[in-house]
């Protein structure tokens, strides 16, 4: 084992040790916020039946569900359940939280991973071409659009995309995982995935494009690139082999820091497209003060963010020996 791998191992260990208290703080924070909200969970439990329930029965159910207990008592009950592997029951989905996550997480992962791929490919291609032909028409258009789109939230993009590609041109389905009643086959899911994944990907692209363009411009001015040019290497080789690798290292770090944006983007995109993923469940759970569900999702999202930035740092450290791995 080299000193380098040991350094990286320490980085991972330190970050993971740091992640545990962060996750606990997030879970407790969500719990306290839910407890402070004005919504009464017993309403969610009863649904429309609350309109015919008597006060005595409502009180009995509150007691049975432990809703009258103190916040910290409820928190303790939940934490001890988690330690034994019981994430609790989701009130808004009337299922164990573990099952809700198992049903929905794969669809969210599919959407986010494809969305990220779209963003990365778009950013690399557009950013490289723009920097290569700096000041040209393509560069001006890409930079203009990039700056303009930084302020457009993903759901606006989603609504525009639906208006154009589904309602206007009729190329793609409006929403859902499959057509009504169709089984979730590859063809069905793939066709329904195109629009949400593109919207999610494109909404993440502006920062990435501008960043790739900027750092590639910087790299093109560096000595080793000038040297390559001076040796008479073809322009393509100079840009792709010599300049781009230098420019890509900060890009990987940037990708890691974009994870939170990706997560919030997924919430909006899933809601607009009725994509049955975990993010859509956030909205439902939040409106229902469904604490076990909210806590599990928040912890998952926190873990995704921590893990995303950790992976980015490890990748950079592995790729570039100049980067120190001691945080």
């Amino acid at each position, binding site marked *: 084992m080299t000193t380098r791998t040991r350094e990286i191992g320490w980085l991972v260990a330190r970050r993971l040790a740091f992640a545990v208290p962060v996750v606990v703080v997030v879970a407790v924070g969500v719990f306290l916020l839910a407890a402070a909200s*004005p*919504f*009464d969970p017993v*309403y969610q*439990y009863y*649904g*429309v*039946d*609350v*309109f*015919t*329930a*008597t*006060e005595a*029965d*409502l009180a*009995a*159910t509150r007691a*049975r*569900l432990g809703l009258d207990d103190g916040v910290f008592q409820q928190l303790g009950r939940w934490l001890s359940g988690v330690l034994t592997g019981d994430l609790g*029951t989701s009130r*808004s*989905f*009337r*299922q*164990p939280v573990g*099952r*809700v996550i*198992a*049903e*929905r997480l*794969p*669809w969210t992962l*599919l959407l986010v*991973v*494809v969305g990220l791929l779209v963003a990365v490919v778009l950013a690399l291609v557009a950013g490289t071409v723009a920097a290569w032909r700096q000041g040209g028409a393509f560069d001006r258009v890409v930079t203009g659009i990039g700056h303009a789109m930084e302020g457009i939230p993903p759901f606006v993009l989603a609504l525009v995309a639906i208006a154009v590609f589904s309602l206007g041109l*009729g*190329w*793609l*389905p*409006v929403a*859902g*995982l*499959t*057509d*009504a*009643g*169709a089984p*979730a086959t*590859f*063809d*069905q*899911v*793939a*066709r329904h*995935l*195109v629009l949400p994944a593109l919207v999610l990907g494109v909404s993440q692209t502006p920062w990435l494009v501008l960043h790739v363009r900027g750092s590639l411009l910087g790299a093109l001015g560096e000595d080793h690139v000038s040297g390559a040019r001076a040796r008479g290497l073809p322009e393509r080789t100079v840009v792709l082999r010599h300049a781009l690798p230098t420019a890509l290292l900060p890009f990987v770090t940037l990708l890691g820091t974009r994870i939170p944006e990706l997560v919030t983007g997924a919430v909006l995109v899933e809601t607009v497209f*009725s994509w*049955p993923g975990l993010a859509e469940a956030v909205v*439902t759970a939040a409106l229902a003060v469904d604490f076990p569900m909210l806590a599990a999702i928040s912890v998952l999202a926190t873990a995704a963010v921590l893990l995303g930035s950790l992976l980015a740092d490890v990748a950079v450290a592995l790729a570039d020996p100049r980067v120190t791995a001691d945080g």
Partner: protein
Amino acid sequence: MIRRVLTVLGVLLVGFSAACAAPTAPGGAAGADGTAMVLADGYEPESLHPLLGYGVEGASKFYDGLLAHDADRRLQPALASALPTTAADGLSVTVPLRAGVTFHDGSAFDADDVVATYRALLDPAFASSVRSDWVTLAAVEKLDAQTVRFDLAGPDAAFAHRLTLGIVPAEAVTAPAPAEESPLSAQPVGTGPYTLAQWRRGESMELTANPSYWGGAPAVERITIVFAVDDNTRAQRLRSGEFDGTVLPPALAQTFEGSEYTVRDHPSADYRTVTLPTANPITADPAIRMALNHAVDRQGMIDALFAGRGSPASNPIPEVLSEYSEPAAQFTFDRTRAGQILDAAGWVAGPDGTRVRDGVPARFTLMYPATDTIRRDLAQGFTSDARAVGIDVALEGLGWEAIEPRMGADALVLGGGSPFDPDLVSYPLLHSSYAGDGFNNPASYVNPAVDAGLDAARRALDPAERVAAVKQWQRDYAAAPGFVFLTFLDHSYVARDEWDGYEQVVDPHTHGTTWGPWWNVEDWTPRA
């Protein structure tokens, strides 16, 4: 979980290049032979557990109750083998059970399942959300494997209508845990005509015919119910031919007149009323209460807001319960009379048009749930009609959490209704024993004469005596109203007319694709 992950990974690996291939034909609409049906619903159940209110009024596709209602609202035996017999003192009801019925999991149905279901309903440990509907039920006993007896706390003429609760297998209610933790919430095991094949939350539900259904295997073998909350989205997708039917707001439904779909308007017992709280000095005033009941133009609201679909309401007894309906207890729209009533009570018009008595203006607040457009529109109609006779009503659209603590003092647009028996809804709504109790009688309407009539109707075992008692309390109510009942809503449906077996039914307050045209879809047959 693992298989799902693999499916997803498979989709991911091959990439989505294939996705841009030509769109496939809409997967929805009915199979050519009519054995499959695709419906769209604006409402997705949160749970399929009978103890959490799923299909509690009958017409559940997965469960059967002991009894069920037919198209004429008469009770018919379902899991019972005959109609129940009530003891002479009215304190117990005995039900013989159908033999040879099996649950979806293959286990046999008998008295143990009935007893276990109802005991779980009564036991607070199961935290059933519909327990309050069975206040008169004291105990359930198994007499033998094919007979059960219900013991009542007092005579209850409407009790048999409570026997539509879906029966679950006894094994499903052995552990005394809150019903939300039960697997039945997502995986129903009943005796009903359909089994749940798949439920993709937030998207769709697929039902498959139960081939060994005791009532005969349904001819419509597959029903897909797609959940699409937005009314306009549902209408658009229906236009594209994706669905065989859906529920729509009346005005939107009428736009399908003359298309390939048939528009079906169902009368309902679903009332909307304005509560007039007794604790509020303005709304408690008998003159104000009576004047408002004559000041509102009920038919005008129906014409303007619901394209004429609906019927005026004066009390919670809908027109469809015609045998109980008392014509002498209906309020007429008469603005002049409303003015005279207010004049006589000393409410004189002030400078700004609002009436004043002893320096107190005739002014109160009306709350409505902010997200409910029908209630908002009715509240606005009510406000302008009240202003026309000099009563100033301030509107507030709120969430239920904000409404609940205030509904004892501020007026509220309330809804509910049952077409099956006058007792089921009227008793908790109007009886003083429910005054201020949850949402039942939130404005605390108390009228000893109405109480006496409601009690007499509940105790009466002779049908003619019941009718007389119900009509009596309606007259007593009309003499001293505590609400302004506005309308019974019609429910509108749009459906492809390719099956035989449709029977119009009167919907309860709950609606959607469980009720409406499809309440007896298990009896439908594809048209040749």
